[in-house]
């Protein structure tokens, strides 16, 4: 009996799947927030320049590497990289191309499950009558697994399992029968929903009660050019970072999808089509939804102070309520449906490198590979669900979803341009091309892209305090807690640095504005010494004893409660250990695969 080889059904399906891989939650949530935080209109110029000098070259590099590897029967990055050089160690850089996907899928599927749940709640009109604080609190209740918003016990876990099962089922149907079908349905719907929400958002004008409540003010802030910001390295770094994450480069998914394209078929045009489609969703749709709607109802000042990822779940349902009973349901379903399609087309892409690797090296069936991907994702993901509030989620996102991407991308551009050789690489890119690739990209791929990536990596490694580059250059370099070195040193953890302790210290200074005891918890609110505006809220179970009283002035490090505590640093260090274990496990699999290849004469 012959086993049908994995393949794409149609060219359009391949392009939509690649675009779906790139289009994610970040297009709608990260891009507008980055733009707001980096000077509004000034951000778009560095963004477009980075797209030309880093985004497009990386897309072409990854498509070329993937198709080249596929020609030799390799469908995942360890042996795609191995195939391009005689140095055997390169394949261990390729491990990042599987590791990143499993680790990111672990928490990404969790966010995806929130969107599923919020579609359900939008249809059920759960948010009707809730004020802004109640909608925000609904989210914190939802992610607290001990509580339920629907009556279903462990609701967040149930939705997570449903979402993961859906991913496993679709992956088990293969590329053309599963991934491609979802992309063909999901991408057009996503764009349709996005267009509706963008038109509604841009046209709503002055909607809220405040003086600066106007969607046009939000748009104006996003698009007003501020050329003086162009000299600030922080803006350029943010733009480069955004291009990097939005295109899903440095993950190994593009290589994997492209590995199923034959060498006589085009990759140059396909890469451009998928890449620009992602740009359209981000620049045209992503910039026209969250910020203008929020500015329309809550005002520009509110947006400047609160713009962030949490707006999607903690603010948008409240804003849709202002559209009336029918449109609020339509708006909620479209918004969370759009995020769901953006999420699932990306999470499916994250499953394919593992499946390709296990099929190539150990001849595993689709079902077996999909199930083990699900099991690994679940094992890695449950800590992010259980210990979301303890910082495990953020730790995964930082190390797997940020640092690993930059390391892998830097390695692959050096490999492609310098080890494999730019001449061979250029020939591979142009083989079967349906467009003429401009010659100027040859030196860009060889020199400019690696230098830009090196800049991004070094800047992330030694980010100066408060991201103030001018001050660091002129007055001495102090590392920021968010730099890679600062993260390794846990520089951001000022108090509660022991794993286990019999007291809990305050991380902020101020005045204790309230001490309450509810059914199961003590709640301590610390306010600013000047305005009494809340700066921190601590919640402890009732078996702990409160050590402060209302009106007491406290400093950073003062004890606020006593009892037996496991501090967050324990959970974040365990998360790092988990990630490291996964990476080492994958390295071991690659080593085993190498031994098998040698035994079978494949090397």
């Amino acid at each position, binding site marked *: 009996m012959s086993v049908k080889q994995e*393949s*794409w*059904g*149609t*060219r*359009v*399906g*391949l*392009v939509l799947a690649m675009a779906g891989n790139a289009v994610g939650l970040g297009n709608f949530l990260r891009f507008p927030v980055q733009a707001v935080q980096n000077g509004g*209109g000034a951000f*778009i110029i560095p963004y*477009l320049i980075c797209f030309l000098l880093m985004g497009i070259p990386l897309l072409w590099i990854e498509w070329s590497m993937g198709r080249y590897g596929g020609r030799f029967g390799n469908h995942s990055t360890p042996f795609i990289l191995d195939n391009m050089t005689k140095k055997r160690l390169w394949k261990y850089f390729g491990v990042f191309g599987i590791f990143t996907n499993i680790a990111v899928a672990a928490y990404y599927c969790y966010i995806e499950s929130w969107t599923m749940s919020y579609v359900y709640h939008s249809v059920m009109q759960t948010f009707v009558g809730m004020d802004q604080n109640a909608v925000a609190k609904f989210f914190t209740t939802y992610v607290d697994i001990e509580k339920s918003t629907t009556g279903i016990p462990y609701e967040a876990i149930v939705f997570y399992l449903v979402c993961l099962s859906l991913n496993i089922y679709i992956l088990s149907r293969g590329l*053309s029968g599963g991934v491609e079908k979802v992309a063909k349905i999901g991408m057009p719907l996503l764009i349709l929903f996005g267009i509706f929400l963008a038109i509604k958002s841009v046209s709503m004008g002055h909607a809220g009660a405040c003086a600066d409540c106007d969607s*046009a*003010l939000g*748009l*104006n802030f*996003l*698009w*007003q*050019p501020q050329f003086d910001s162009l000299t600030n390295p922080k803006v350029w770094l943010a733009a480069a970072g955004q291009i990097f994450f939005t295109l899903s480069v440095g993950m190994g998914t593009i290589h994997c999808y492209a590995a*199923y*394209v*034959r060498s*006589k*078929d*085009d990759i140059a*045009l*396909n890469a*451009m*089509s998928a890449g*620009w*489609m992602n*740009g*359209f969703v981000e*620049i*045209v749709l992503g910039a026209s939804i969250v910020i203008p709607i929020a500015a329309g109802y809550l005002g520009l000042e509110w947006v400047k102070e609160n713009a962030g990822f949490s707006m999607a779940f903690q603010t948008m349902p409240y804003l849709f309520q202002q559209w009336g009973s029918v449109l609020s349901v339509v708006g909620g379903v479209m918004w969370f449906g759009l995020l769901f399609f953006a999420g699932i087309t990306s999470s499916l892409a994250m499953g394919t490198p593992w499946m390709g690797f296990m099929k190539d090296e150990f001849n595993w069936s689709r079902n077996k590979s999909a199930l083990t991907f699900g099991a690994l994702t679940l094992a890695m993901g449950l800590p992010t669900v259980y210990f979301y509030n303890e910082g495990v989620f953020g730790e995964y996102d930082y190390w797997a979803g940020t640092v690993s991407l930059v390391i892998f991308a830097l390695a692959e551009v050096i490999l492609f341009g310098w080890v494999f050789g730019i001449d061979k690489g250029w020939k591979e890119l142009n083989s*079967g091309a*349906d*467009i003429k690739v401009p010659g100027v990209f040859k030196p860009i791929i060889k020199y400019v892209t690696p230098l830009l990536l090196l800049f991004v990596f070094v800047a992330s490694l030694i980010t100066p305090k408060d991201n103030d580059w001018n001050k660091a250059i002129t007055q001495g370099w102090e590392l920021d807690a968010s730099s890679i070195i600062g993260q390794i040193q846990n520089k951001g953890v000022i108090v509660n640095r022991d794993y286990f302790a019999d007291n809990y210290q305050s991380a902020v200074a101020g005045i204790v504005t309230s001490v309450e005891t509810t059914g199961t918890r003590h709640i301590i609110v610390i306010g600013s010494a000047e305005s009494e505006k809340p700066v921190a809220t601590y919640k402890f179970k009732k078996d702990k004893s409160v050590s402060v009283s209302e009106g007491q002035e406290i400093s950073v490090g003062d004890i606020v409660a006593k009892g037996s505590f496991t501090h967050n640093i324990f959970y974040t260090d365990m998360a790092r250990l988990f990630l490291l274990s996964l990476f080492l496990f994958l390295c071991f699999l690659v080593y085993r695969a190498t031994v098998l290849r040698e035994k079978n004469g494949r090397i």
Partner: protein
Amino acid sequence: MTTSAIITMVVVQVIVTIITAYFFYKVLTTPPRAEPDSFSENDDEQR
């Protein structure tokens, strides 16, 4: 909105939309390669 903000928004969004549409149109209209190609949907066509 200020005039410069409107111009920036319209110019950037129109250019991005046109380029996206152009590349996608080219993908849709470029004739497929002779079999065997990378795509299974037309595998029944004569090789």
